[in-house]
């Protein structure tokens, strides 16, 4: 662990707040080096990540199956706090992981599903096909990736699903301005 010499915390007190400044406890992990000795840790990490990539398809299939299992539980038991949470968590993980694993369109479809779960006023009122189509699309994108012509189709499929989901959410939240604002707000993450 980075160790630093003991130094007092300086507290400046104002009318409604304190500003607490302590000497940088991590300053001793910064080292000045000559430019010729500077390696590229990012390139090293990207290379290491590429070394893992052989496992990505299998990992993605595991994540997609987890999503299908969560959906099966909902078809069996209906939306409960537990089944809703597991469906959201599975979709949310795919939203975050899929692009790293090489399946950006699956991530986009999962994001659309997350938005439905998060912003639909009543999940029991969501057309069951809308949720099922998202899950089937994600499975298809993951299973059919080896075919050369699927990337464009996968992108188009995700885009269409997102459009339908957004139209549904905009209509369902027309009297709920807080949700409507969240549905219409742009993501801070760069687009695919």
């Amino acid at each position: 662990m980075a160790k630093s010499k003991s130094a007092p915390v300086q507290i400046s007190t104002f009318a409604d707040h304190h500003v607490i400044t302590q000497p940088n406890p991590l300053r001793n992990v910064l080292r000045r080096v000559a430019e010729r000795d500077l390696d590229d840790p990012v390139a090293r990490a990207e290379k290491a990540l590429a070394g893992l990539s052989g496992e990505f398809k299998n990992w993605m299939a595991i994540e997609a199956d987890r999503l299908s299992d969560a959906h099966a539980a909902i078809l069996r038991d209906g939306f409960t706090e537990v089944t809703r949470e597991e469906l959201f968590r599975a979709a949310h993980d795919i939203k975050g992981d899929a692009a790293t694993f090489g399946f950006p369109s699956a991530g986009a479809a999962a994001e659309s599903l997350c938005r439905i779960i998060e912003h639909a006023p009543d999940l029991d009122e969501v057309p069951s096909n809308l949720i099922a189509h998202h899950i089937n699309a994600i499975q298809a994108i993951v299973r059919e990736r080896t075919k050369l012509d699927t990337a464009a189709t996968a992108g188009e499929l995700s885009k269409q699903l997102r459009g339908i989901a957004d139209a549904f959410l905009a209509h369902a939240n027309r009297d709920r301005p807080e949700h409507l604002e969240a549905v219409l707000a742009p993501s801070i993450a760069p687009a695919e």
Partner: protein
Amino acid sequence: MFRIDFNKLRFLVCDDNPHMRRILRTLLHSFGAREVYESEDGATALEMYSHYVPDIVITDWSMPIFDGLELAQMIRQPESKGNPYAPIIMLTGHSEKRRVTVARDAGVTEFLAKPISAKGLYQRILNVVANPRPFIKTKTYFGPDRRRNTTNTYIGPERRIGGEVEVLQQPSLLDKARSTI
């Protein structure tokens, strides 16, 4: 030019997804880190935080038991025996502006939206190591300064109220935390 000695840093990674933990571990090790502790939920992470006293915490948001937001809130307790100042990097699939604001208000130091990239992670770590922000304590907030840009001319409703400045010298809370280990 500056380089981070990652082998002097201790990381705590908290994510319920084993694949994401594996990716994070791979990235941190390839940066040069040797000490990377992992937890799959917020409660275990809090225990590990007290036990291992990491220099930097990297946490997901959505997790079972209690989530990354609650973990940040529990770390940012100014009166706690542990170190309330450790940098917290929130790595999450949530990418809405509202979420960033909520994370910021929980005391998160840096926010990194998934999908993860080596460059994005390195830049966040470099920022917390090289450019730590002072901490602000108000009645409702304790955490890194939420304002990255200072402007003395700001007169909006959220301006801080100034007044006579009183400078107090106190023993380092970090030292206090270390002495209890």
